[in-house]
């Protein structure tokens, strides 16, 4: 589904990803761990093709197509959907209008909103304007559910979400990902209680430090923090 080979990326004159290899086979759900500032969001922006993230070397293949220099909207058209960590607010553009466009009126946006516990009054509100942290997450997840991408990427869908909603959105994401491919970024791993994932990777300083079973990696991180990864004997050495 997604195959990233030797990806090095710069933003604002700074190297944020170095020689990243990552493969998500069709139908699998992967998890990406990593401390703050390790480059997780930068990796997503690069997969999407945000022009301020410049690919220095390497390539990104999606469904066998080399998308490394494709415009954002064409990548999305191919089937990539992202729930952003920090989406911008857009005045006057209503969440409901975006949802109607994404579902082409075929899915009931109101029902979808209920599934992530976002009160339907939000559909009439300006996109992300004045949303609380948790509301932002739920609105982002809702938009991805409406988009129905082949590969759904969630950038820290659990940060800022209260316990009650964590279960709701975790379950919503999990049932959505059934039979799809996904990439889930989480800093603290809370949401993994509700999501079945096949493989996990740890990003440290812009490089994948190790990969393995999600439960195993999470429990190590819980026990020893991210420093463990730096010392990990199984860690992949950069080529």
């Amino acid at each position: 589904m997604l195959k990233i080979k030797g990806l090095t990326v710069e933003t604002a004159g700074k190297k944020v990803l170095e020689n990243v290899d990552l493969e998500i086979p069709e139908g699998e759900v992967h998890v990406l761990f990593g401390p703050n500032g390790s480059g997780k969001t930068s990796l997503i922006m690069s997969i999407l093709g945000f022009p301020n993230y410049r690919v220095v070397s390497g390539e990104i293949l999606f469904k066998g197509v080399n998308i490394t220099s494709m415009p954002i909207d064409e990548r999305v058209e191919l089937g990539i959907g992202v729930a952003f960590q920090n989406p911008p607010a857009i005045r006057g553009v209503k969440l409901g209008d975006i949802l109607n466009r994404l579902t082409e009126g075929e899915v009931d946006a109101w029902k979808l909103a209920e599934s992530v516990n976002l009160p339907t009054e939000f559909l009439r509100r300006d996109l992300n304007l004045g949303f609380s942290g948790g509301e932002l997450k739920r609105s982002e997840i809702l938009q991805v559910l409406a988009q129905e991408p082949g590969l759904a990427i969630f950038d820290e869908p659990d940060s800022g979400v209260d316990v009650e909603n964590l279960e709701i959105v975790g379950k919503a994401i999990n049932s959505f990902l059934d039979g799809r491919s996904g990439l889930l970024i989480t800093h603290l791993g809370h949401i993994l209680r509700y999501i079945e994932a096949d493989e996990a990777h740890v990003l440290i300083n812009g490089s994948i430090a190790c990969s393995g079973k999600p439960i195993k990696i999470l429990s190590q991180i819980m026990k020893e923090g991210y420093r463990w990864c730096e010392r990990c004997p199984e860690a992949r050495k950069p080529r």
Partner: protein
Amino acid sequence: MPRSKEAALRAKERSSKLGPDLDVESFSRDARPWAPCPISGLPEDILRQALSVGVRVDEGKRAGTYFQMDHSVVFQGVQRALEGKTEIMSTQEALQKYGWVGDYWWKIIDVNQDKYTTLAELKWDQGYFIRIFEGQKVDLPLQACLFISKDNLNQNVHNLIVAEPNSEVQIITGCTIHPDVKRGLHVGITEFFVKEGAKLTFTMVHNWAQDFDVRPRTAALLEDNATFVNNYVCLKPVKSLQMYPVAYCKGDNSRARFNAIFYGAGNSYLDIGSKVILQGAGSRGEVIARALASDSAQIYARGLLVGEHEDSKAHLECRGLLLSDDASIHAIPELVARVKGTELSHEAAVGKIAGDQIRYLMARGFSEEEAQSLIVRGFMDASILGLPDALESEIKKIIDITAKRIL
């Protein structure tokens, strides 16, 4: 009114402090008279143009209508069921019919303000009088259309609106010209009196031409518990348009709100502001402006809040969106606190379409052009006008047509 005519003469040469100075003598005063007729009987091209500023022919949509062509009143009246609740007629007729109307004439606008106010006094061409009777609530909007059909014409209207105590009404006014009109000058004096407990929502839509000049002069006086909402929408190019309407929140707990959405294209020069003077205890004001500039348009977006009572509060929000490198937007918010305790605040932001917003929408599958158009359309969000659903969707349609054309 010989006294005000004499007084007017003193300001005949006085330029306005704002906006380009105009030679008012360079416009023609000769207009052929139009015979009264039902508005549905007006030529098709005129009705199409009127519709573009929210003026409807279908009677079921409006409680009453005033339609002025050039210097002639072609139609005035309210639906039969509303007689005795509201009335609409030319100001000339109103001055003859009711002695008290004269008491409101030039009461809150100084006839000597500048050469345009004096012009409106010396060469006065009708205008509408709207009255909503005490305690009456009119559900459908009343409408007025001020139309110019002849090139190079000068039209000077003086309007008067009286919302009697505890009345409630929506008024929509469209000012526009025939597509063949290139040049001209429209001067519009409008005095609003919003009495105790009354609620008046006034929405004005302008549609002019690239060589046309416009000088509205507007003031509103609010009594106790009165609410005045003034909406302004201008989406077509104009040579110059300068106005700075004012609301005097004189009454206790009076509330004034100005919302404006304006778009300067071509070489348009727009100098548009709103003032709220807070004089009553518990008075509140709000000014919201959305200015868009493309091509080489120049926009001045002003706002002035004056707090004269300790218990008063107002906020001003001005946002400008630049769509071209040659255009400019100057946001000029001013706050004047004359007493302790008054709470005045403002926020102003001017800039181009934010790249992160475009990229974000592209990540939802919109093309770059679609993303820009969504953002522009959102920027001109009709819901800031606080209109009832039906009227809001009418205005939204008018805005959408423009938004589609912009990009």
